[in-house]
Every structure is written in structure tokens, then in C-alpha cells.
């Protein structure tokens, strides 16, 4: 009887042990707290502070991207403060088609890609014939005489429904009367109508959306002539514009063409940079004048970190394939004409400084895409005490204040 009792007990013990082992695999400690009594001592305290004077040095530099290297060329109406004309030189057209001499040119067709445009009804791009030798040294003054009625060779209407896409127009066969003398090189320039708020962006070679010029001709075949065609892409594209007013050293310029960048050096207390987690950091900039650019246009201002701060040639920590920009982190749209204080997120720049002590405490401001228009923002620098840039930081100290 005693043996039987012991056997039953052992079975129960074995079952209990197995149950315990299974139960022990599960752990559920997570529980809601009631603060402050039953919260851990290491509470999460968050602080908001405005660090005036935290930008201790800043400077603006230009020459990064020239108009002929930009991914867009903006056409802005004549007479505007930022009037500009896209210009294109095509690769030489052939003087024969499939070894058949050209007897006559019937017509041309010009196709261009327009990614963005003003929200103005009845926009038209007016096509002008330009000298064949335009290049990156051509200036507004050089070409301004060619943007007149006598050189107009076509009009490309931009449908009001067009958000972005390819548009084109036929050009007459005599659109380029000196084509043969010019070595079969065709060049065009664009004006835009109507009114002071008209503008449109044209894609360029740098964006792989360059213009295409198609030639329709009659060629000699035996004793007859037949229709034939060929096309060429742009060999050079850029835009010429009225010169912008310069600014003095108290100003931080961003954008324009050739593009400007401004680099700001930051000095924050170590208890923020080294001993806290930064939840949000925003850079506050005061414009010295309204945002320059085509009326109704918006400019994309970016703030990014530098890999190393070596002055104007400092390499930028590239945004991760635009992901940060998509999340509106570090990017901000500026409306042309606005003069409100600009607040741009720089959390992605300041937050890593605690972990990456080698990274320079510098912020670069630039426009994306660079030099795509004359649009430009001008902010007061740290040398203008009343409106100097500042940083607003929301941070959480990682060590309780009673710890050293």
C-alpha cells in the first residue's frame, strides 16, 4: 500500500514538473504602470528648449550646379524678376537619309517633357530659333534679342489638364533656314505666355528627359523623291536668365543658379547632444526678403548633414534615395513670395551626433533639385543678432538629473 502511494506521488510529481517546465517557457511581465507611485525611478522626462545663439558660424557658397547641369530648365515669363528662357542645341541632323540626299525639308516636330507648370490657364511655350553656337557661356544679354516675334517658329500649348508629360508641336520646314550652313545644327529657345505668373519646367539631358527634334523631308530616290524622317536629341540644354541681385555677407543664400548652399555650424550644450535623446530638432530661419522665384512656384529646401566640414566642398550625407524627403524629414516646400519664418526639421542631423561623435556639428541648406530654377531663399545669418538662426530641441535626458 505504501509502495502504491509512493508511485502515485511520483506520477504526480512528474506531471507537475513537466507542467512547470512548459509554464516556465512563457513569461508575461508587461503591465501598465501608475505614475509616479508605481513607475520606475527612471521616468521619461521630456524638455522643450529654444537654443538661441546655437548657430555659432555660418557661410554661403555658390557654384555647385550651373544651369546647363541642372535636371530642369525653367521658363519664366518675360519681365518677371526671375525671367528665364530654356535653350536647346540638338545634335547635327543628317544631310541625307539612308544615303539618299535630302531634296527638301517638309517640316519638323519638336517634343519636350514638361514635369511641372504654373497653375495658370492657357499656358503656351513659344519656340524661337537661336544661333547655332549657343553653349554654357551664352548669357541672357547674348540671346535676349532672339526672343522676339521675328524668330518665333512655333507655339506649344500646354493643356490645362496637363500635370506633367510630353508635349510637342510641328515646326515649318523653313524653321531653320540656315540649317545647312550651320552644319545641320538646330537650336531653339523658349518663352512662355501669358501673363506675369506663367512658368513651366522643362526636363533636360541630366534627367534623361531631353527634347527630341524630328525632321520630315523628301529625299531623292532614283528619279523621284519620297518622304523620309530622322530625329536627334538635345546635345546641350540650359537656360539663360536675368541676373539676380547680389547679397551681402550677413545673408545666407540657398538655391538660385548657379546654386548656392549655406553651411551652419552648431554649438549645443553637451547635456543635449551627448546625454540626451533628441526627439525633435528644428532649425528656425528668418528670411531677409520674400522667397525669390517664379510666381506661384514652390522651392524644395533641404537640410542635411555633412560627412566632413571642410568648407564649401564639404560632402553631404546623401538622403536615403529620397526616403527622408518623402517623410518630410529635413525637407520643406517654400512658397515663392512668402516671408514667414521658416522652420525645417533637422532631427535626422542632430540626433545621430550622440552616437557618431566624429560627425561634424554642421548643417547644410540647399535646394533640390539644384539650379533647376532661379528660385532662391535668403535668410539672416548668425551675424544678424536680431534674426539669427536658432534651434528648437525637444529632448529626453537619458540619465536622471540626480546622476552625475
Amino acid at each position, binding site marked *: 500500500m*505504501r509502495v502504491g502511494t509512493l508511485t502515485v506521488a511520483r506520477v504526480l510529481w512528474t506531471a507537475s514538473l513537466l507542467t512547470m517546465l512548459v509554464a516556465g517557457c512563457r513569461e*508575461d511581465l508587461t503591465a501598465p504602470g501608475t505614475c509616479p507611485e508605481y513607475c520606475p525611478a527612471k521616468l521619461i522626462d521630456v524638455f522643450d528648449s529654444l537654443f538661441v545663439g546655437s548657430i555659432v558660424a555660418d557661410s554661403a557658397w555658390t557654384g555647385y550646379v550651373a544651369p546647363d547641369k541642372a535636371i530642369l530648365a525653367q521658363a519664366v515669363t518675360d519681365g518677371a524678376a526671375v525671367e528665364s528662357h530654356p535653350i536647346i542645341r540638338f545634335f547635327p541632323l543628317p544631310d541625307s537619309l539612308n544615303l539618299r540626299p535630302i531634296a527638301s525639308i517638309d517640316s519638323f516636330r519638336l517634343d519636350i517633357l514638361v514635369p511641372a507648370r504654373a497653375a495658370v490657364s492657357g499656358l503656351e511655350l513659344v519656340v524661337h530659333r537661336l544661333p547655332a553656337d549657343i553653349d554654357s557661356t551664352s548669357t541672357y544679354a547674348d540671346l535676349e534679342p532672339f526672343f522676339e516675334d521675328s524668330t518665333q517658329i512655333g507655339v506649344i500649348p500646354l493643356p490645362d489638364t496637363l500635370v506633367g508629360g510630353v508635349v510637342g508641336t510641328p515646326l515649318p520646314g523653313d524653321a531653320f533656314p540656315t540649317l545647312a550652313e550651320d552644319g545641320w545644327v538646330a537650336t531653339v529657345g523658349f518663352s512662355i505666355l501669358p501673363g506675369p505668373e506663367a512658368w513651366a519646367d522643362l526636363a533636360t539631358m541630366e534627367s534623361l528627359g531631353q527634347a527630341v527634334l524630328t525632321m520630315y523631308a523628301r529625299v531623292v530616290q532614283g528619279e523621284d523623291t519620297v518622304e523620309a524622317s530622322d530625329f536627334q536629341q538635345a546635345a546641350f540644354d540650359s537656360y539663360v536668365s536675368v541676373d539676380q541681385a547680389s547679397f551681402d555677407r550677413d545673408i545666407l543664400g540657398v538655391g538660385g543658379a548657379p546654386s548656392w548652399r549655406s553651411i551652419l555650424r552648431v554649438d549645443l550644450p553637451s547635456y543635449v547632444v551627448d546625454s540626451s535623446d533628441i526627439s525633435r530638432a528644428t532649425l528656425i530661419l528668418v528670411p531677409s526678403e520674400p522667397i525669390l522665384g517664379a510666381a506661384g512656384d514652390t522651392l524644395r529646401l533641404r537640410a542635411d548633414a555633412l560627412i566632413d566640414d571642410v568648407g564649401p566642398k564639404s560632402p553631404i550625407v546623401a538622403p536615403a534615395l529620397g526616403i527622408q524627403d518623402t517623410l518630410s524629414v529635413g525637407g520643406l516646400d517654400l512658397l515663392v513670395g512668402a516671408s514667414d519664418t521658416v522652420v525645417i526639421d533637422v532631427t535626422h542631423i542632430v540626433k545621430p551626433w550622440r552616437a557618431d561623435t566624429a560627425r561634424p556639428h554642421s548643417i547644410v541648406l540647399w535646394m533640390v533639385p539644384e539650379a533647376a530654377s532661379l528660385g532662391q531663399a535668403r535668410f539672416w545669418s548668425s551675424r544678424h543678432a536680431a534674426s539669427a538662426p536658432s534651434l528648437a530641441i525637444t529632448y529626453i535626458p537619458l540619465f536622471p538629473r540626480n546622476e552625475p
Partner: protein
Amino acid sequence: MRRLALLLLVLGVGASQTVTAQSSLYAVVGLGFPGRPIGVRARGMGGSIGAVDPGSAVNPAMVSQLTRLSATVSSLTSLRSYEIDTLSVDGLQDTRFPYAALAGGITGTPVSFEATYTSYLSRTWDVVTSDTVILRGEPVAVDDRIRSDGAVADLRAAVGWFISSKLQLGAGFHILTGSTRERIERDYADDDYTPLRHDSDVSYSGLGWSVGLTGQLLSWLRMGASFRSDGHLDAARDSVRIGRVDLPMTISGGFAAAPVPGLVIASTVMWQSWADAQDGLTSIGGEATTFNTWDVSAGLEVGGSVGPRVPIRLGFRYAQLPFSAEDDQVREIDLSLGTGFRFAQGRAAFNASVERVSRDGGGASEDAWQISIGLSLLP
């Protein structure tokens, strides 16, 4: 060698686990939740036999009873619920390994030794809260989670001297050591704010000593008493010292009586000067009120060597906790039931206990079922 290898294997199994004590709502307060240096048999008796139990680490003089090589490990599973004001939480569960020991006698001498691991302070918790904070003039909803996983362990090396059946002495040297991995998390409802994820390691260190005596004063009565001093506890976060706090003295005494064969009645009383920890507490444990504590337990064991082969153990315990979020000291009442049996020709033993624990005070209350299992090998 085979016996030694088996012992090491058993101890190794215990050491490979997370060796922290059970969690409690009250582990969040002060230095944490104090551990109990007792084995599973003593737990089944409410801790009442602790002062005269060779299977517990309360009285170093009881080491003198451990003349055979032995190894012990135990686990404790806790199923908890608590209430704070209108907040009621249940379904909390965790398993820990709060006690392990390796002991033996030195051949040809009246001296025995023991090395024990016990939990000294549990600092394991996982707390989530939701709140709304004002940031840049706007209300922003936040979800916080603060986790701590770890404990301060008590590693004791003790020797016991069997002078006579009426008097045995013992002394122990204690190393208090351990660490906690702490993580704080915050998520904002507003995407303009980046979430917080921060880990840190806090290490703890301290030294202590203990002395004790015990004796079989009558053939049916054993009594014992001990004194322990733990000095202070130093804490460092990520290797940077953050504070020092005084630890308590402990005075304990108790008896076990066997007035009739097959019946053991026991009681232990323990007092600890935890109020000494008030100074410096903030640097490690945050704001809390500290109290000296009493721990009184009584229990009995029926059967075992005489009568039923499987003993039944019962116990009652009243204890005070040293840390409270308010001026109201937290109290704990335990009712326990235990049993055990030997097997393998007496070379191994299983012990088990179930405790119903009710804690109350400091503006909260907590109930728990605690299930302990112990395995001892005497090769």
C-alpha cells in the same frame, strides 16, 4: 569524478538560466523586491524553518549539518495580479531560479562548507504607460515602456563547525553582485517626433558577512540565531558610478521542534534595518520611503521519515516590505503548502511548494500564486 561531474551539470543547468528573483509590482519601488534565502522545503513551511534549515542560506551555522556532498537548485513560477486605485491587472507570469547551493563536508574534520546563490533584490519589471505631454505648445500623446531585467544576487561562501550536538557555529562571506539591462522606449503619436529607444546596463556590487550559531538543545528541539551585515551597495550605469546605498543588518532566530515522531513545528523571526537605505536611495532606486522590516513565520511538517512517506508541509508568514511609494509600509501574508520525496535510493530529492501571497500597502495590493520546485542531489 562522476558524482562531481553530475553536480557540476546540475549547477550548470541552473546557472545557464536567468538567475533573478520573482518580479512584483513592488519591485519597481526603491531598490527592488527583496529575495528570500530559503529553499523549497522552507518555502513549503512559510519560511518558518529558515533559521535552522540546512537547505536555506539564512544561518551559516546550519552549514555544519551538510556533511555529505550535495547540490540543490530550485525554480519559482509566479502568477500575479495587482490593483492600484481603479487599475486592475492580472495574468502576469514569470519563472526564475532564486536558489542554488553546493555543499559538503571536509573529510576528517568537523567543518563543512557551502556555496550558495540566492536572490537578494529583484529588479525585474516591465511597465507601460500612456500619457499626453505638451510639446511646443501642442498636446502630444505618448506611449512609454520601461523595462528592467535583472537582479542583485547574493553569492555566499560559508563554513560551519560542528563543535558538539549542542553547539555548531558558522560564518559566511557574501558577495552581492548583479546587473540589470534597462530599456526605455517612447513612441509619439505625432510623427514629427522620433521614437526613443535606449538601453543601458546597471551593475551592482557589495560585500557582506554573516555569523550564526545553532544547537540541538534538547533531543526534540533545535534552535538557531544569526547576524548578518551587508555594508553597502554600489551601482554603476554603463560603467559610470551612479550611487551608493547602505544595506541592512539582519538579525534572525528560530527553532524547529519535533515533539512527536513525524511532526516538525518551526518558527523563524527576522528583523532587517532597511531604513538605513534611505540615504542614497534616490540615486539608485528613485524616490521611496524605507522601513525596517519584520518577517515572522510559523509552520509544520507532517510525515517524511515517520508516518506518510510523502510529507505535508504547511506554513504561515507575515512580512513587511522595506520600500513603499507612500508612508504606508507594505505588508505581505503568505499561506503555503508543500511536499517532497526522495528517490534513487535516497540520493536525490524533489521538493515542491505552493504559496498564496497577498501584499497590501503603499496604495496598491498584489496577489500571487508562487509555485516552487527544487531538486537536490546527494551523490
